[in-house]
């Protein structure tokens, strides 16, 4: 379990995160939503250890991030997988080399064992015959799948995704969503997704956290988000006519 208690983060005197507290459970897909500038990315970067919070505790299965030494922190990072918004694949390396990279850096496996693992994760994300291609030769959706493959190649305990669907067509976005949810179930990991995509939120958000001005303004499941009366959530999530109608249909069906 990841526990966050009273997290504060400032930049040049302006407080971006104002006392966020929440928990993320094993085997669940957690979504962080909120307007641009609400603190989502900063929150995710604090969890990843890329930003050091001014105050508060982040605990990964009892390991308190701020109390870890260099070695333990490095170990913690090896338990994390991250899918960046643009994929962040190393463009000078082939797909195979990209996925091999963490294995080469952190394991003493033989070359054949490493290649077996690379092929296994590529199969898991349903990619074939791409080993010797470079990232620029693949479509956006395929690059995201490679990024997921690289993120899970070390069998992480925690998977973080920053806007995994941005720039993808709705069909590919659904494929990526389903893939992330299947991997979360299969590996029993904690997945935290930063997203603007309300389709994703409704589809796979087992726990949804709504941030507003650096505050954890609402928490619930993808069913509770239909029923909430929280004005800020309703205004943000149901800003489009389509989602308004979906909500009305859901509420009339359940009443």
């Amino acid at each position, binding site marked *: 379990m990841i526990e966050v208690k009273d997290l504060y983060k400032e930049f040049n005197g302006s407080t971006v995160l104002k006392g966020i507290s929440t928990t993320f459970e094993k085997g669940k897909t957690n979504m962080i939503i909120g307007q641009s500038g609400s603190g989502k990315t900063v929150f995710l970067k604090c969890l*990843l*250890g*890329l930003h050091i919070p001014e105050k508060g505790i982040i605990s990964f299965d009892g390991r308190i991030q701020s109390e870890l030494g260099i070695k333990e*922190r*490095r*170990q*913690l*990072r*090896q338990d*994390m997988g*991250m899918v*960046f*918004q*643009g994929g*962040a*694949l*190393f*463009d*000078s390396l082939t797909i195979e080399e990209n996925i091999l*990279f*963490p294995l*080469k*850096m*952190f394991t003493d496996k033989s070359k054949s064992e490493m290649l077996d693992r690379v092929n296994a994760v590529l199969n898991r994300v349903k990619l074939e015959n791409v080993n010797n291609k470079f990232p620029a030769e693949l479509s956006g959706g395929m690059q995201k799948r490679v990024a997921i493959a690289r993120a899970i190649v070390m069998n992480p305990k925690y998977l*973080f995704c920053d806007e995994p669907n941005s720039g993808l067509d709705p069909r590919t976005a659904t494929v990526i969503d389903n893939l992330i949810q299947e991997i979360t179930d299969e590996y029993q990991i904690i997945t935290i997704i930063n997203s603007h995509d309300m389709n994703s939120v409704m589809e796979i958000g087992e726990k949804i956290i709504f941030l507003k001005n650096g505050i954890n303004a609402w928490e619930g499941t993808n069913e509770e988000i239909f029923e909430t009366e929280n004005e800020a959530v309703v205004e943000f999530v149901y800003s489009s006519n389509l989602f308004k109608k979906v909500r009305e249909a859901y509420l009339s069906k359940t009443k």
Partner: protein
Amino acid sequence: MNYLKHIGKYFIMLRQVFKKPQKWSVFRELLFREIDDLGLKSMGIIMFISFFVGGVVAIQTALNVDSPFIPKYLIGFATKRGIILEFAPTFMSIILAGKVGSYITSSMGTMRVTEQIDALEVMGINSLNYLVLPKILAALFFYPILILLSMFMGIIGGYYAGLLTDLFYSEDYIYGIQLDFDPYYIKYALTKAVVFAFVITTIPAYHGFYVKGGSLEVGRASTKAVVWTSIVIILLNYFLTQMLLG
């Protein structure tokens, strides 16, 4: 004040760079790749420029010492001195600052804006050590070789200029380049090459690593890196000359 901030940040960066590599086998692979990218791929341009500049130096000297009281072998002597002491170590380094420096800044800057550096950090990798140390070591090892090559090609260029223009005899030129040869000058030139190699890799790496924004900022950072690297090379050249020859 802002300059002091950058200088401080640059030295803090160097402290992170000079750490033990996380995996030697990966580091060795990267080192060879950087020797190829930063060194071997610069050989062609170095040879080309040095050959023709050597030729021009010899022609200019020949035209300017056109007096019966000045022996012709001084053309070879002056060409050799000019190339070994200044042209090869200093001006080749400025050319390399343009070629290699902009490559380092733009490649690292692109990695920064496309979150590839963040990806390294999230994996628990010291990104500065991983990206910059192999570049520095590759340059420290290979640039003296490039500078020696530049000296050789410059002197050969001068020889062929004499052959093609008939401004001086090749025997005089060969006598001139052998006259009063002091091996210390080679040591001096290579010392400068090593110092400049460090500057050519670390200043552009600093500008690339800390770039913020998008592709436009990466372009600006590359320009800035080349300008600052050239300025630092020129200043260091002055101090090194004073220290080593003064």
